[in-house]
């Protein structure tokens, strides 16, 4: 379970988060929605300790990130898989090696076992024929799928998706949405999706948290979101291309 308690964060004089509380239960998919620049990615980076709050706490399975040493934090981080906005693939190695990368350093698998695991993850994201292509040869959608394969290769308990469908055409976006649903349902992974793409949010998430003016403005299930009379949330969803 992921818990955020009384989180406050600012960069210089700019307040990003003010007293945010949020709980993400195991096995669920939560979408964090809000305008661009509202601090959604900042919140995501607090969940696995890439950023620390000015005050407040982030708890992973009851363990407070503030109390962990750097060595313990690195162990806790291995519970997470992260799909970054641009894929964040290492451009000095091939797509295959990107997926194999964590296995080579954090497991004692043989070369055959690594190959089998990488191929099975690439199959999951429908890229089994990617071979030894360099990352510069991949399209935006392929990069995200390789990034997703890399994120799940160590069988994480939590998956964080940062704008998984941004910059993609509708068809590729749908493929990514299907993959997110597949990961949540078939692998029982707790997922947090950062997005402002309402079409994607309504497809993949069970819960939604709406961020507005440095606060958690609204939280509920997707069904509740569709019926919500929260004015700011309604404005946000109405402005989306997707009609509820």
């Amino acid at each position, binding site marked *: 379970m992921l818990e955020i308690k009384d989180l406050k964060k600012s960069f210089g004089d700019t307040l990003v988060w003010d007293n945010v509380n949020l709980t993400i239960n195991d096995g669920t998919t939560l979408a964090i929605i809000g305008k661009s620049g509202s601090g959604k990615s900042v919140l995501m980076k607090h969940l696995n300790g890439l950023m620390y709050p000015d005050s407040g706490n982030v708890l992973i399975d009851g363990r407070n990130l503030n109390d962990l040493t750097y060595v313990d934090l*690195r162990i806790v981080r*291995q519970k997470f898989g*992260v799909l970054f906005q641009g894929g964040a693939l*290492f*451009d000095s190695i091939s797509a295959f090696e990107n997926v194999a990368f964590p296995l080579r350093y*954090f497991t004692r698998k043989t070369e055959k076992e690594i190959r089998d695991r990488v191929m099975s993850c690439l199959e999951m994201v429908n890229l089994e024929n990617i071979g030894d292509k360099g990352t510069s040869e991949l399209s935006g959608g392929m990069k995200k799928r390789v990034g997703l394969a890399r994120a799940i290769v160590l069988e994480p308990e939590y998956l964080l998706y940062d704008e998984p469908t941004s910059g993609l055409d509708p068809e590729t976006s749908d493929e990514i949405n299907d993959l997110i649903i597949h990961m949540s349902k078939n692998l029982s992974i707790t997922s947090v999706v950062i997005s402002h793409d309402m079409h994607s949010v309504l497809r993949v998430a069970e819960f939604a948290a709406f961020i507005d003016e440095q606060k958690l403005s609204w939280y509920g299930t997707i069904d509740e979101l569709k019926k919500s009379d929260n004015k700011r949330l309604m404005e946000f969803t109405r402005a989306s291309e997707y009609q509820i």
Partner: protein
Amino acid sequence: MQLFLEIGKYCRLLYEAIRSATEFKTYRKNLFSEMVKTGVDSLGIVSLAGFFTGAVLTIQTSYQFTSALIPKSTIGAITSQSMIIELAAVISGLVLAGRVGARIATELGNMRVSEQIDALESMGFNSVTFLVIPRVIAGILTFPIIYMATAISGIIGGAIVGYMTNTVTTYEFMEGARLYFFPWDVAFGVIKSFVFGFVITSISCYKGYFASGGAEGVGYATTRATVLSCIYVLLSSFVLAALLL
């Protein structure tokens, strides 16, 4: 205030690097590839720079020594001494500040802005161990070799140009070089190159690692890394000369 903040962040990065230097398994593979990129790949350009520096030094020395009372072997002595004590280390340092420093800052800066460093940390890696330590160690280990290659090229360049321009025979040139050769001068050059290797790679790692703001930010970080590396190469050369000579 900003200066103190920068110094603090730089020291913190170095502290992190030193603290995690024992995790050799993590950076072993990177260390060898960095030694090739920093050392082996730089040998051509520094040898060329050394060769022409030695050549120019020989021509200028012979141009200034017009008296027949000064033995021609002095040209060899001055060229080799200048190369060994000062020029080989500083010339290679300045060349590498541009070649190696810019590469390191650009690589790490791009990794920072494209979230590759965040990706490393997210997987449970210590990004400093993985990215900074191999680059700094590679710099420290390979710069002395580069220094020696530059010094040797400079002496060879001086001897060849002296012979080709009929200003000094190769025998006289080498006689002068041998006569004024002191092992401590080489040790001094090696010490300087160790320091330059550390200064250039650590500053460039720092600038790249903390780059921000997209392509413009990476460009800025690269420029700052190169300029600061050059300044600190000259400054540390002065300090070491004042302390050790």
